[in-house]
């Protein structure tokens, strides 16, 4: 157990590629569900999968989980094709579409079942996850009497049990009331940052993904349109400069080595705040009058619309 923990810790430090999706294509009869899809999942990181309905999000998630085996390309888990991994060596926890549970059993019994099957049963783990998702007081109720949100929470807990290396969550906030959403967000972060899991999460609530994800994969009609490292983008802020001398400002900034671009009636530049403070006097000394400037953060929704061509 300690050895596993140490290995997991090491892999977070190294940010290892736990799962690689390589050129995966899948057809349903004559309909293309996925075409040459590739991306990686890294330990300790959360990857968001976004796209419109029918984009192929659930299909790729099912392929990763081994629920679909008839496809071309490869999904490698720790370097081994998931189709060839024996079930007793799988390291994937999943919540895909609706959560699965035994309706006549209580939430606690269902969680025990999932934990036992994972081969890593721990009462403390059950209590911990239930507490994090505010499910403790409902654990003794029959699962069939749970509300949609409670079922979703139960599904998330069951996916986490056994501490898998890879966690796949398809629409985890589906059916949750707004007060429950932060708890789900926190447990996703906890799974990645503390437990070192490689997490893939899909959702239509882009503002939630923006908060929780390190990377975003945009998918449409079975094609990956763009992969975006939003964590890095957050560290590379964009500033908007308002001036009447757009062309001159752009030239000066480029001379100073910054990526500047005129967009309509303003100038956008990739620059950190402290660098901007040094650059501003230089611009003024060149006779450029800066009317105003502000920090621009492109929201995921804007990015989504741009990438999807909406």
């Amino acid at each position, binding site marked *: 157990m300690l050895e596993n923990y140490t290995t997991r810790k090491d892999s977070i430090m190294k940010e290892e590629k736990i799962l690689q999706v390589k050129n995966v294509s899948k057809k*349903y009869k004559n309909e293309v569900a996925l075409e040459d899809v590739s991306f990686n999942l890294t330990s300790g990181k959360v990857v968001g999968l976004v796209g419109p*309905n*029918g*984009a*192929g*999000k*659930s*299909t790729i998630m*099912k392929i990763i*989980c*081994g*629920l*679909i*085996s*008839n496809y071309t390309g490869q999904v490698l888990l720790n370097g081994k094709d998931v189709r060839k991994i*024996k*079930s*007793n*060596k*799988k390291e*994937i*926890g*999943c919540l*895909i*579409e*609706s*959560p*699965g*549970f*035994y*309706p*006549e*059993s209580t939430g606690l*019994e269902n969680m025990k*079942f*999932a934990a*036992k*099957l*994972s*081969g*890593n049963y721990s009462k403390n783990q059950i209590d911990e996850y239930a507490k994090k998702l505010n499910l403790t007081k409902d654990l003794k109720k029959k699962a069939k009497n749970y509300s949609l949100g409670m079922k979703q929470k139960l599904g998330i807990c*069951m996916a986490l049990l*056994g501490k*898998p290396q890879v966690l796949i969550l398809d629409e985890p906030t589906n059916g949750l009331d707004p007060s429950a959403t932060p708890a789900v967000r926190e447990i996703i972060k906890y799974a990645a940052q503390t437990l070192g899991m490689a997490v893939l999460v899909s959702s239509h609530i882009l503002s939630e993904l923006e908060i929780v994800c390190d990377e975003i994969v945009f998918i449409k009609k079975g094609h990956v349109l763009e992969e975006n490292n939003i964590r890095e983008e957050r560290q590379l802020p964009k500033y908007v400069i308002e001036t009447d001398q757009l062309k001159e400002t752009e030239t000066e900034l480029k001379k100073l080595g910054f990526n500047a671009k005129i967009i309509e009636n303003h100038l956008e530049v990739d620059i950190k705040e402290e660098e901007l403070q040094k650059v501003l006097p230089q611009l003024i000394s060149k006779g450029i009058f800066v009317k105003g400037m502000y920090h621009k953060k492109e929201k995921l929704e804007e990015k989504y619309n741009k990438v999807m061509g909406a």
Partner: protein
Amino acid sequence: MDRILFVGIFKFKENLKQKSTLYFLLFSLFVFVCGIVRQLGVNKNASGTFLMFVVLCNIYINFVAAYMFANEFSNGMYKQLATSNMNSFSFIIGRTLSVVMTSAFMGFIAIGCYAVWTIVGKEKVNVSDMTGTFIFFIILAFYISQVSYLLSELFLNYKSTVIFVALYTLVFPYAYVMVKSLWKSVDLIEKMPIWRLRARVRNADIRVADVTVILGISLVYMLLGLIIEQKSDFSRVNGDQQDE
């Protein structure tokens, strides 16, 4: 091993909580009362009532086995199982164990009723009938479990599995005999290995050949199920594609 036992007990308990178990118990109570009434009259025949009860239990166990092997496709648990760290064979044995436990549970009820009927009717207890029936119940549970497993892997759907288990065990044998009877006399009990076994067990005439045939068929079904499972594509499971 403890996980196999855990799965067996978990699913056995899950089935006990179902409404169908309540209906079965109510039905058993009804048969029990009818049996008592019969034993109080002049036409006593505890063995005859017992046989009828056993046949009905046999029918019920078909549905239980289909439930144990295919309900994961209706409650969505197949996704959990596919990503679990438990191998297919262990899970089959676990589920078979749950069917065997249910069968044994029914066996105890049936034998209990029989014992009371004989006492009430002051008839002689036929011990071989009781033990034979119990042994048959266990073998039947193993056999019908593998039938259910194979059919569940073929259809990946709970309702279809239930329907085809019922067709396989209840309808096809009669259809076969009726069609064959058009040109040849056929004894259904002699023709169907599982029914032949039951008839002989009741007469304390357990033959190794009969048991071997049933166990052999069961193992073939299990093997076929395992082969199909390795090539399973769960995109066929109802409703999954539409939900995306």
